[in-house]
């Protein structure tokens, strides 16, 4: 067999995935932390103040990467949900369910930072502009997936039901977005966007892209950590989990991992 295909087959086995993810996790966290620090330094110190919005524009370095991530994570979750439902791969179920809380966290940050930006700029904490409203609906979708997953007792069945809901959400999201845009034009809502019309300069752009990179890496780190925890709970009857559990007290003392 092709070595890459073989590797994917091996990765599908929970104990192998657990070890593999455990080896990668510290590196992912480190990369996310370092690139995040560089991005924040660039955004807070190096980048000049925007000539229209002043220093308040510096919020985009957390707001915009999180907004991108909220959609990216949903796409990732839906892709895994699709694989889980069609090919019944247990690892995909785990990955789809592990990405939901991370996506909800990013969506929440997007909403709060958007609101913090809105207060000085629009003079109000909340405005029903198309982007914020779509983001709010996205948060509800995430919460629905998480809620359904935790409400059903049988873990595999819960994952499959929640995965199905995530897929319905994919069909729904563009419809929500365009209907909210239409609704906004009807009501002559806010049209000022957070990015503004001002052309973004090079020294403003690179910190943004660095932050986007950092949040992506962070997502995969959190995803792997959550998938590891979920696999332990899911396979608690298996020998490999018992071995880890029994070895735990001594290992916990030296280092986690």
């Amino acid at each position, binding site marked *: 067999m092709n070595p890459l295909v073989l590797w994917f087959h091996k990765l599908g086995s929970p104990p192998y995935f657990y070890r593999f993810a455990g080896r990668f996790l510290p590196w992912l966290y480190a990369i996310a932390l370092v690139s995040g620090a560089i991005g924040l330094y660039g955004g807070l110190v190096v980048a000049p103040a925007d000539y229209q919005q002043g220093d308040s524009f510096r919020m985009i370095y957390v707001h915009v990467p999180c907004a991108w991530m909220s959609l990216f994570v949903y796409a990732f979750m839906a892709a895994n949900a699709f694989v889980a439902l069609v090919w019944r791969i247990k690892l995909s179920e785990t990955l789809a369910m592990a990405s939901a809380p991370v996506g909800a966290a990013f969506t929440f940050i997007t909403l709060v930072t958007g609101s913090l930006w809105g207060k000085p700029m629009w003079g109000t904490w909340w405005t029903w502009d198309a982007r914020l409203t779509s983001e709010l*609906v*996205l948060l*509800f*979708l995430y*919460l*629905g997936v998480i*809620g*359904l997953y935790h*409400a*059903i007792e049988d873990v595999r*069945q819960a994952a*499959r*039901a929640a995965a*199905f*809901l995530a897929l*319905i*959400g994919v069909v*729904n999201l563009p*419809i*929500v977005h365009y*209907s*909210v845009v*239409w*609704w906004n034009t*009807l009501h002559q809502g806010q049209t000022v966007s957070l990015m503004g019309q001002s052309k973004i300069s090079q020294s403003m752009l690179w910190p943004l892209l660095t932050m986007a990179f950092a949040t992506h890496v962070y997502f995969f780190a959190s995803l792997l950590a959550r998938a590891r925890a979920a696999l332990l709970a899911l396979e608690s009857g298996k020998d490999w989990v018992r071995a880890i559990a029994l070895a735990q007290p001594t290992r916990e003392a030296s280092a986690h991992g």
Partner: protein
Amino acid sequence: MKPGTTSAACVALLRRDLALTWRRRGDALNPLLFAVIVVALFPFALGPEAQVLERIAAGTIFVAVLLAALLSLDSLFRSDLDDGSLEQLVLSPHPLSLLLACKIAIHWLTTALPLIAIAPLLAMLLHLPDSVLPVLLAALALATPLLSLIGAICVALTVALRRSGMLLTLLVLPLIVPVLIFGAGACNAAQAGLPYAAPLLWLGAWLVLALVLAPLATAAALKISLT
């Protein structure tokens, strides 16, 4: 030994569910009562001025009707699950999606249609201009089947849960937002003297799409929930 035809199965299901609804006809009044109560609460909260009520009439009626229909959705498959009829439906040789479409149709006929019928009364309570009433009825006629169809998917996902009320609302809410925007939007546009055909046509297009896809999705979701 031949199984019966699919149309015979659908007719049998429609007849049985209609007979059951007739036996429990007292329950059918609950959504109506709920919608009237919700609408009646608004004047108490906002004051009785006709201009204020007129401004919010269409949206309030829409929300009240959608909530009433949503509350009744919870029981869509409940009794069939409890007495094992749902298993028999799944095991029958006919396409499950078609049988479920029949059940959804019954739900719409027995809960949403009466709600549309009392919409003129609700409109009168909130001083909705008479000229807007036909638009409201058309929008409700297009939006309520959409709610029944989309809601059925979510009910199928939560059917195995004992208490699913709040969760069901959370699942349905994001899916129903566009329907609410366009349905109430059409009424508001008509009230403001703006063209209102486009949102109604969009609702119609979605309804056609949902009529085809939602029963299939409901069947798939139900199979996930029953295993």
